[in-house]
């Protein structure tokens, strides 16, 4: 079936809603098993089997069985959610087949919540993880089946696309995006609407322009894009198609890391379904707009997250960045005007179009609007994927959403922005989430990696970890980055091995300055940040290593012992 009108979309929506209706009589419950990468790794497939077996044993057909992407509470996988006829949501976690049995006896059989399993329901300790979040981009997570486009349509999916086609005014679309204040979620935070405007105005000799979705999520400790693509791929697709209409592109590429097999599978299916419904292809939704899209699988190179390197990679070359200008908006893929945005940026678009710029920019600070997704990991109790309003203090994310530090340990630092970012100490936790304010503090909001470190972590070792990563991933074409990162890594390694020397810290600072100033691309320009921020806030740890001539193992072992005494 090809969708051509609002009526067609509405029909699919109504059918889907009625198929999923829990009226308390014919259908009493809906059970959704959450099957993201982490869920599956934790045994969600076995849970699926157990649930199906238990449904069979009830010998009735009053239970709707479904699967979805993950609900973001990674630490508690595998999980399932029960919807009942009163609209309650009960999420059971850390499951095994025995617990599934209990759920069927109590919740499904006797109609009582299996409280002994400590489910996530309103007003419990665990639900605090969600209470401080604001689900906009992640609104469909855990609720829809990412392999079923009808589920997305039933949640107002592709309505924004229809609105845009009816508007038939690309400049107006760009104005809305500009007014919303949305900034690129890949890390640099460039205003999205302005980028679109540059690309719209760029001239192409043969009229060909491209849109590209950057899903080369390379920051270690970040998985926002993976999760979005796995749990709601159509929201990203819809955003890309709208962008294509706005800038006048006819072809799109989604560049996804090869490390994300499930995201690629989900996306492939979403594109296939969208094509079948006529949402991608020729004469989209009955308009005269044609658009085709392809997935391009990365081959393992961190630097390809840099936009000019990404373009070269799609062209089949070594992914090495080139100087800008010209910017991709003017000369990008195959030298054509090209729009490149991050996965999360695109996923924001449909709602901005549907609900308006004013609705969007109600949340946030003066310069940073809307919400941002973070991958909250490390030493917090509630590890997971969180979406919070811009402007809230870091402390709220760590203490309220994250539930504080695990095992009663002391907080030491939070690492933001991966290898391009920095570590912030306790005294800066009240800094609001705002691109400029976080930068002033010595880190960056980045793409959304947020790794919480406790008192056991050696900050020099963390700096060494990131330098090791960057040194390995440096493409090697410019000398400051290629050789500078190598020399910095050598010094950091020496210090952590107990062979640091007087003057090492100053040498690191001097080299950091040169690498930042002289490197060609963002990778090199930001490479020294983790070192600089740890020197800035944890200089004493560097000095202790150098003065005592002790390695990490010896120094920190002793520190721990001391505490026991």
């Amino acid at each position: 079936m090809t969708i051509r009108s609002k009526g067609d979309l509405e029909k699919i929506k109504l059918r889907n809603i009625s198929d999923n209706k829990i009226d308390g009589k014919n259908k009493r419950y809906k059970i959704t098993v959450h099957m993201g990468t982490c869920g599956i790794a934790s045994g969600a497939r076995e849970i699926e089997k157990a649930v199906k077996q238990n449904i069979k044993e009830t010998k009735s057909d009053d239970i709707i069985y479904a699967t979805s992407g993950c609900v973001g509470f990674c630490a508690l996988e595998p999980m399932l959610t029960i919807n009942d006829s009163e609209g309650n949501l009960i999420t059971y976690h850390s499951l095994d087949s025995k617990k599934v049995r209990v759920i069927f006896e109590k919740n499904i059989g006797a109609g009582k919540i299996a409280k002994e399993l400590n489910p996530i329901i309103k007003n419990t300790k665990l639900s605090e993880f969600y209470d401080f979040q604001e689900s906009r981009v992640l609104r469909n997570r855990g609720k829809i089946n990412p392999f079923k486009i009808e589920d997305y349509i039933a949640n107002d999916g592709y309505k924004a696309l229809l609105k845009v086609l009816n508007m038939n005014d690309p400049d107006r679309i760009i104005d809305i995006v500009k007014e919303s204040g949305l900034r690129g979620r890949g890390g640099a935070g460039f205003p999205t609407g302005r980028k679109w405007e540059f690309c719209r105005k760029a001239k192409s000799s043969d009229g060909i322009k491209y849109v590209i979705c950057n899903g080369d999520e390379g920051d270690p400790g970040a998985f926002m894009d993976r999760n979005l693509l796995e749990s709601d791929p159509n929201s990203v697709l819809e955003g890309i198609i709208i962008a294509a209409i706005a800038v006048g592109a006819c072809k799109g590429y989604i560049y996804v890391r090869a490390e994300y097999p499930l995201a690629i599978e989900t996306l492939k299916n979403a594109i296939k379904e969208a094509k079948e419904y006529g949402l991608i292809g020729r004469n989209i939704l009955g308009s005269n707009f044609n658009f085709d899209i392809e997935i391009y699988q990365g081959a393992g190179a961190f630097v390809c997250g840099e936009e000019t390197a990404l373009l070269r990679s799609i062209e089949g070359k070594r992914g090495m960045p080139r100087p800008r200008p010209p910017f991709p908006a003017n000369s990008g893929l195959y030298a054509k005007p090209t729009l490149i945005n991050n996965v999360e940026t695109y996923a924001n678009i449909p709602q901005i179009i549907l609900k308006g710029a004013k609705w969007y920019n109600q949340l946030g600070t003066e310069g940073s609007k809307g919400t941002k997704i973070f991958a909250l990991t490390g030493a917090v109790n509630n590890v997971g994927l969180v979406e919070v309003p811009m402007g809230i203090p870091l402390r709220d994310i760590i203490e309220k959403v994250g539930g504080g530090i695990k095992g009663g340990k002391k907080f030491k630092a939070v690492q933001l922005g991966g290898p391009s970012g920095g570590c912030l100490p306790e005294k800066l936790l009240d800094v609001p989430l705002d691109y400029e304010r976080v930068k002033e503090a010595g880190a960056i909001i980045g793409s959304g990696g947020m790794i919480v470190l406790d008192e056991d972590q050696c900050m020099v070792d963390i700096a060494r970890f990131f330098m090791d990563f960057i040194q390995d991933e440096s493409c090697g074409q410019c000398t400051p980055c290629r050789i500078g990162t190598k020399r910095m890594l050598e010094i950091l390694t020496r210090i952590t091995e107990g062979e640091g020397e007087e003057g090492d810290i100053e040498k690191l600072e001097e080299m950091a300055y040169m690498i930042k100033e002289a490197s060609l691309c963002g990778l090199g320009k930001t490479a020294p940040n983790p070192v600089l921020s740890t020197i800035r806030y944890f200089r004493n740890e560097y000095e202790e290593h150098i003065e005592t001539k002790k390695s990490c193992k010896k120094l920190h072992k002793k520190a721990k012992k001391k505490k026991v005494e």
Partner: protein
Amino acid sequence: MGVLDLPEYELTEEENIKVNKIISKYKGEKGVLIPILQNVQETLGFLPLTVQRKVAADLGIPEKDVYGVVTFYSFFTMIPKGKYNIRVCMGTACFVKGAKRIVENISNELGITPGQTTPDRNYSLQINRCLGACGIAPVIVIDDIVYQKVDPDKVIDIINNYSE
């Protein structure tokens, strides 16, 4: 042993047909080198120089361009993989939870360093860039199975399940 010291690999007739099929599927389109190499590696398990020369000749591009791409991207390998391919995630979340010790323990047990394959071709060990499964860190992947919250001191027990 460096990659260039590896013995010249001769494609079997069957492999040759498969590789030809892959190349002809993509030939003529733009930007196809990386997808071709990905497909060939999926089929052969690695990308020996013989295959690289063949791809270059068939696409009409210099051999150095193919070699350059193969050596640039970490997913491509010129060393044959073992029967079981062990990948240890070295993302930040895994690192702070002991991934370094996991690698040390596996290396000691198998007598190989990351990037190598055991002489009996049973195991190969790789350090992986972040797999994005940080919520269940530390993580290792053997073939396609993900092991979560791995205890560095017990990782050998997992490896031992893959003895035959």
